[in-house]
């Protein structure tokens, strides 16, 4: 019967379907790869713990002494517990003191209110008196000012008239004086013309003398000029040599400068590396503390506490102390517990020894922010 051909006209083969299928998968992979980096940076922006280095040498020295004393881990653990208890006692004492102060302040506040009422009445009276006095004083001032203005105007008019008369007299006297001056000037002109003719004769004689002198002078000048040229050439050669030497010196100096600059650049690069290492360590610490921090329910968004942390040589926490309290003891305690939970920071040992000293002491700032 109907024996089937292996080739089916409806069958389009498997080449094109395979190409389509692989294209679909490549598109999906590309899409996932392109989309990924964009959405990633957002969650990192809201870090709730901020770390700052405390790079004062006095502190690091203290930390070193502490390290020497507590070479063993047990000693370190004890030193961690001690500040806790002392801190708790201090907090209790502070709370009592605060309660007493509050009572005192309340009593003082009542007295202050009564005093304030009396003072207000007295001030009102004083102000009324002041206003009356000021009004009277202003009226007097205005009267005086008007009188002064009238007197000044009258005096000014009188002076103007006097000055005008004096000017008229002076003008007349000046006109007479000018007429006399003109006569004298004409006589002078005549005398000057006579003198000018005499001078012209003298000048002719002088010119002849000058020509002779100039000829002699030119001969001398040529001789001098030749000598000068020789000297100048000699000087120029000497100068060229000097300049060449100076250039050499300058080049050497520049080379030395460049060497110095390169050294500085290297030092700067090393400093940058150190900074980067410090930053990465601090971010690790930050993350660990963030994760370990259980934010108490009493905390509000605006609260923030700064704690100072001192580390031992292997990254264990020696002491934590409150630098600036949030005002809520629960909040401060939770932050301290977070640091103890996150410890030890073993990454400290991976850093170079010089930086370890600097990084053993840093501040952590706790802000719940928009987490809750």
């Amino acid at each position: 019967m109907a024996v089937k051909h292996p080739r089916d006209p409806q069958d389009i083969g498997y080449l094109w379907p395979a190409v389509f299928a692989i294209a679909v998968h490549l598109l999906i992979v590309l899409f996932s790869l392109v989309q990924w980096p964009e959405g990633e940076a957002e969650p990192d922006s809201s870090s709730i713990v901020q770390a700052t280095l405390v790079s004062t040498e006095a502190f690091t020295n203290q930390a070193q002494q502490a390290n020497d004393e507590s070479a063993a881990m047990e000693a370190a653990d004890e030193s961690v517990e001690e500040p806790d208890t002392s801190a708790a006692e201090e907090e209790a004492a502070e709370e009592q003191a605060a309660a007493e102060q509050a009572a005192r302040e309340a009593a003082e506040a009542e007295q202050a209110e009564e005093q304030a009422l009396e003072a207000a009445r007295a001030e009102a009276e004083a102000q009324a008196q002041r206003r009356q006095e000021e009004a009277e004083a202003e009226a007097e001032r205005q009267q005086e000012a008007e009188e002064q203005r009238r007197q000044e105007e009258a005096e000014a008019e009188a002076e103007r008239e006097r000055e005008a008369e004096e000017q008229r007299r002076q003008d007349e006297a000046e006109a007479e004086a000018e007429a006399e001056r003109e006569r004298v000037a004409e006589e002078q002109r005549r005398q000057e013309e006579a003198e000018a003719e005499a001078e012209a004769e003298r000048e002719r004689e002088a010119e002849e003398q000058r020509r002779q002198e100039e000829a002699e002078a030119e001969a001398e000048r040529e001789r001098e000029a030749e000598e000068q040229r020789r000297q100048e050439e000699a000087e120029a050669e000497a100068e060229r040599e000097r300049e060449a030497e100076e250039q050499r010196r300058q080049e050497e100096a520049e080379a030395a400068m460049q060497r110095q600059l390169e050294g500085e650049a290297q030092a700067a690069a090393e400093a940058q590396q150190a900074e980067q290492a410090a930053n990465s360590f601090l971010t690790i610490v930050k993350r660990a503390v963030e994760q370990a921090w259980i934010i108490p329910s009493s905390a509000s968004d605006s609260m923030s506490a700064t704690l100072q942390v001192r580390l031992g040589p292997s990254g264990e926490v020696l002491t934590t102390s409150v630098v600036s309290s949030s005002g809520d003891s629960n909040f401060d305690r939770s932050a301290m517990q977070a640091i103890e939970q996150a410890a030890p920071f073993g990454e400290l040992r991976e850093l170079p020894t010089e930086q370890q000293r600097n990084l053993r002491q840093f501040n952590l700032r706790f802000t719940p922010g928009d987490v809750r």
Partner: protein
Amino acid sequence: MNDNAMSIPHLIMNASTVVQLVMLLLTVGSILSWIVIFQRGIALRRAQKEYAQFEETFWSGVDLNELYREIPADDPRHGAEHIFQAGFREFNRLMPKTRNAGTVLEGVQRSMRVAWSREEDRLTQHLVFLATVASASPYIGLFGTVWGIMGSFQSLSMTQQATLATVAPWIAEALIATAMGLFAAIPAVIFYNRLSNNAGRLLGKYEDFAEEFHAILHRNLQGRDSASS
């Protein structure tokens, strides 16, 4: 550094061997299922077009003998044409041998049923593979996830401090296996339903056509019987 460690390619490259094998299996299954989806989709659309064309020429009033002669014997057709060819050939062969109409109709029906079952096999080939991928790949992905989470707990027991950071990459990597399983299964399920529905409708049309052709032959035989007797 931490951001890079949590990216998907990094997670896949760092996964354990078993989980990587599961991922590879799922990727291959997904690619094969998409090949089947494209291949079957195009083939079914062509078959529908061919059936529509043949039905039009069949009902246009053309003589059945001419229609049969137009189909060359060495170039077998498919779909309804194949059923028509098989039925008509059997009819022509049986007609000179027996005068019993019942025997002829029985032989024609049998040969058409054989042709129809061949068409069914041809239309629904590979659809079973789609069904397999659709039902099995979520389980395979789940297996990868369970294995990965087992590994995460083992690594958790090694560390002294149990933090999220030690478990998170393992779990993320393990969950990728489940995601890939679902990624392979969802299109396979959707297209299996769609393609098998299309093939079933087409086969129903073939069956209708076979019945109609059978009725035409039956009518012709009745006329011939009464004329001869």
